[in-house]
């Protein structure tokens, strides 16, 4: 049986731990910073933050958290938010701003909030600044951008069928046909992660109808999901996904049960199952770390999702994280200024690992690695930059939208009924 002395010893140890836990607090200025970045992404961010600490003596505590949105909501409601956060969705930034949680970066009258208005206007294009503007007040700034208009391919494979990088949708479809004729499977799509499908649709839609209609469909819901423009976009998407047996690796079942990473692996592994893969610029880093033997640009590369109409060209659909502040202490303001300025961004963009594409116009394109450069060039040269539409919708609609597209891939003939059901959900949620 258990010795009573042992029990007493254990109890004593617990008591000592309780007493020991009441530790001393440090007095160095500290800023806490919450982000979804982890792993090498965190190393990249640290490259910039460590320089900030070295320069100012202000410590930065990074809370890396893969479930940022629910945890941040809980911490806000519970009254212990971090000082800063990188918020992945503009809709969420607006929600927090309207709830009064956020400290303005620049006030409504243009006077300095946490930072001077000039810090933003000197470093960012107006379109990027506007992403952080809620009801006329600047609450956030896009700290990191990603193109989601990149089609990844193997240059050797494209040369193998005697084709070149497509500039138009018709050329892309011609490449697809050439692959099918050659007995190869043109596409690999990770449809189990339904956001890959919504990204496809968003790129097609903005190319057919332009950024204004895009806003009206995804943000304001002035255009319904039963609109002719939606049907036209679905028709174009159908050219890719139907017939699935010849166009998609694994057919319908394979597509809908494959996650987005596996889908990319299927194109770039030594015995590829497909020839092209569409997803964001961030895939470059994933592909090169999964396949370190491949030389970027030479062995794998990306081209811009081609234009569909001459009028609208090829706007970049993108994603990114908005920097926002929950407290207004001077050390927090100092970090915001650093993160928005050119030095902080250049250090982040040129980190040896986990570099990001900075939307700051003063960051020199030459600092990027060959892979990030593909992404950065698309963001920098974009004729227009629209935010990922499914991140702008109410979350219930976004979910219904992504499921609707999975249904569409499985049953393209039922497009009309699937999207009128989506319209019912949307009507109830705007």
């Amino acid at each position, binding site marked *: 049986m*258990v010795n009573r002395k042992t029990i007493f010893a254990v109890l004593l140890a617990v008591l000592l731990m309780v007493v020991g*836990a009441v530790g001393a607090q440090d007095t160095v200025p500290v800023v806490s910073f919450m982000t979804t*970045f*982890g*792993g090498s992404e965190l190393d990249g961010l640290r490259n910039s933050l460590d320089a900030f600490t070295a320069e100012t003596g202000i410590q930065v505590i990074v*809370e*890396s*958290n893969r479930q940022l949105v629910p945890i941040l909501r809980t911490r806000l409601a*519970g009254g212990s938010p971090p000082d800063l956060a990188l918020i992945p969705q503009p809709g969420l930034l607006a929600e927090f701003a309207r709830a009064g949680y956020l400290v303005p970066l620049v006030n409504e009258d243009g006077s300095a909030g946490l930072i001077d208005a000039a810090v933003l206007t000197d470093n960012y294009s107006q379109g990027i600044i506007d992403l952080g503007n809620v009801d006329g007040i600047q609450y956030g700034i896009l700290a990191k951008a990603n193109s989601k208009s990149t089609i990844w391919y193997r240059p050797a494979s494209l040369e193998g069928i005697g084709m070149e990088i497509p500039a138009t949708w018709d050329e892309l479809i011609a490449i697809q046909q050439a692959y099918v004729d050659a007995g190869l499977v043109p596409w690999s799509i990770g449809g189990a992660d339904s956001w890959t499908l919504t990204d496809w649709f968003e790129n097609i839609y903005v190319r057919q109808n332009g950024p204004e209609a895009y806003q009206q469909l995804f943000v304001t819901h002035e255009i319904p999901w039963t609109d002719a423009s939606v049907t036209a976009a679905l028709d174009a998407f159908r050219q890719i996904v139907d017939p699935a047996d010849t166009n998609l690796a694994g057919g319908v079942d394979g597509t809908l049960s494959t996650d987005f*990473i596996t889908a990319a692996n299927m194109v770039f592994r030594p015995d590829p199952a497909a020839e092209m893969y569409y997803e964001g610029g961030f895939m470059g880093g994933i592909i090169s770390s999964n396949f370190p033997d491949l030389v970027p640009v030479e062995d794998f590369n990306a081209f811009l999702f081609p234009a569909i109409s001459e009028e609208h060209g090829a706007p970049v659909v993108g994603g990114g994280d908005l920097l926002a502040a929950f407290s207004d202490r001077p050390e927090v303001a100092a970090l915001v200024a650093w993160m928005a300025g050119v030095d902080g961004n250049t250090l982040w963009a040129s980190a040896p690992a986990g570099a990001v594409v900075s939307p700051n116009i003063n960051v020199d394109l030459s600092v990027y690695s060959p892979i990030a450069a593909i992404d950065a060039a698309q963001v920098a040269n974009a004729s227009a930059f629209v935010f990922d539409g499914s991140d702008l919708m109410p979350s219930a609609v976004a979910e219904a939208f992504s499921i609707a597209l999975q249904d569409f891939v499985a049953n393209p003939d039922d497009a009309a009924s699937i999207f009128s059901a989506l319209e019912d959900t949307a009507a109830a949620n705007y």
Partner: protein
Amino acid sequence: MTAVSSTAVSTTTTKRRGLRFSNKWFVHIILFCLAVVWLVPSVGLLITSFRPREAIATSGWWTAFSPAQFTTENYMEVLNAQGMGDSFINSFKITIPGTLLPIIIAAVAAYALAWMPIKGKDWILVILLALLVIPIQTTLVPVLRLFNQFGLTGTYMGIWIAHTAYGLPFCIYLLRNFFISLPKELMESAKIDGASEITIFWRIVIPLSVPALASLAIFQFMWVWNDLLVALVFMSDPINQPMTVRIQAMLGTYATEWHIMSAASFISMAVPLVVFFALQRYFVTGLTAGAVKQ
């Protein structure tokens, strides 16, 4: 029960005995199949954790043996990650008190509810059962506010209190049901000999309840050790964070680092496994503790 079956066996024919023999094999084969089904994902994860990142991206774990390509690099990367050692210690700092405190408090409470003459103790038990069904998520915001008022957010004290409170209803319920199944005569004779409640609790109930206490310790240890949610909400400072939080911080936004995930899962599993095997001999007896009243 035993007596009945032994008479039955003695009167059966050889044929019946043969049937029993094959029955036993049948059961074993089914059990074996179930065990395989349960183990396949873990084995897959284990094999994956020893494969190079490129191989994981190229093919499934079941192809790992032809040609055999294994590496311990994934484990090295996890173990050498900044702060991993500290977070390992932090996990113990959180888990040991987070296991012992609820069990100690629950044992005392369960004894009172089982054997002491308290008015309305059935109602107390009903309230405890009601607490069992409250999802932990609904309590996070109010508890966080409370902790802020007392300066407990981000402290070990705070997270111990949280884990203790979240664990207590189940611990009390399980122990109370076990204690009440102990023979009444023991308590009565102890009382006649002049033992106080504390003596009965300490000298009779606790030594008799080691199986129940041990299995409860396994449960509670695993819950607290594997907890991510409570730590994410209440332990904001990375310096104090446990291993679960540290591991998820090693994954990028898109969680593409499968080699890290698989290796880290096994490292984090190692401690609960050691605890389980150390206390395992109590586990089977303890699991059904209080399930039936003898």
